[in-house]
């Protein structure tokens, strides 16, 4: 059974988003997503400084089995990317909520509320 922390918001495309104290939004992929992908072996991250709109392709995660696009859950500018998951992609499997992909400076914080909460995300996956 995959974990779905209650303090995060979720996109239907399986990214999680967390609003940080400094107003930035950290993005990763959910436990459910990493489980479905299987062993992650490659991650491609967006360029820092790039401006993304909500739902836009932001990177790629590849498991042994398949490649899957990562989408920006909210609009904003890429502030930072997590190079450590490029060097150790398997950490996406072992620690999906610690292994963030990128941080955004959101252009419209209200977009966060359009994302699913944990209960709704879980329900969507079980549906």
């Amino acid at each position, binding site marked *: 059974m995959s974990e779905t922390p209650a303090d995060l918001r979720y996109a239907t495309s399986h990214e999680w988003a967390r609003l940080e104290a400094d107003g930035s939004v950290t993005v990763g992929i959910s436990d459910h997503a990493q489980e479905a992908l299987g062993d992650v072996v*490659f991650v491609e991250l967006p360029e820092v400084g790039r401006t993304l709109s909500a739902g836009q392709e932001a990177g*790629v995660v590849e498991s*042994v089995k398949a490649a899957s696009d990562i989408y920006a859950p909210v609009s904003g500018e890429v502030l930072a990317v997590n190079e450590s998951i490029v060097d150790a992609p398997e950490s996406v499997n072992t620690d999906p909520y610690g292994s963030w992909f990128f941080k955004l400076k959101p252009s419209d914080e209200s977009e966060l509320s359009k994302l699913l909460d944990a209960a709704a995300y879980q329900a969507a996956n079980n549906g």
Partner: protein
Amino acid sequence: MGQRTALYNQHLALGARMVDFNGWDMPLHYGSQVDEHHQVRNDCGVFDVSHMCVIDVHGADAKVFLRRLLANDVERLDRPGRALYSAMLNEHGYIIDDLIAYLMPFGYRLVVNAATREKDLAWMHSIAVDFQVELRERTDVALLAIQGPSARVRTIDLLDRSRAALITELMPFQGLEENGWFIARMGYTGEDGLEIMLPAEQAAGFFGDLVGAGIGPVGLGARDTLRLEAGFNLYGSDINDEVTPLTANMASTVAWEPRERDFVGREALAVQLAAGGWPQLVGLVLEDRGVLRPRQVVRVECDGEGEITSGSFSPTLGKSIALARIPAGAGERAEVEIRGRWHPVRIVKPNFVRHGRPLI
């Protein structure tokens, strides 16, 4: 719901992620396909391959029938239980399937792919009309593959004396019957190992013994990366009925001698051989980060294009590898298009890992 092997419930109990594989519900992995891959390369693991189709060939004409049916020559099987790998071709020289044929006391035993079962049987029956043979599909058996450097030693510990003695004596590419089980030193991983065919009702017990002894279960995911590292073709990916053995790195499995043996597809194959310049199936190694995938385009130096037929991440090498069909005469380097960008790859012999050791 798909077809189930005798071990379906065991797979579920072991936490397998089940997938549809050509109409069969089969385990993809039991947690991590990369861990399962390493386990086979370093120690051993057990695969349920009961979905594969076993066909026994009986009758006075069994040998002449197979000498007509197969591109390789069963006349080469010189001792009991010896096996050979062969393509089965249509009259155009295209590959209907690849298979293993064992010399048996009653005739021959063929092991063919699950996905091609129906067309294989139809083709075999169409050729068999000219011969005194009987084809008996063995739906009463389960098939387990135990693969890895310690596979034989670990399996011997779990078996009675007569079966253990047989395993000690088996040569590679040989399979013999002992007390109702057919035990072959055979595999699809590039490691030493066994394939054991046993009555389906005994499979759950034996599988349980193996897993209980620490021989972990391995799913189809790792089976695919293991065979890719070993450079073995997968029917439906690297070979199909639009390619010939020459374009599939299988030329060495075509027995041209004796010249008078008229196997199906011989004439067409001889024409291709004489014409020369056929595409070749090669190995690719991606030096960059990324993953090579089937159907990605390969650009070679001599201004031609080819295509990846199988590609994945190689857990043993820690980089991506692929099999690709490219124009003849390509050099040592090529480029592969991944998501709109061209990545340099090295062209190598399609054999990346053997007996645990990198070959590239």
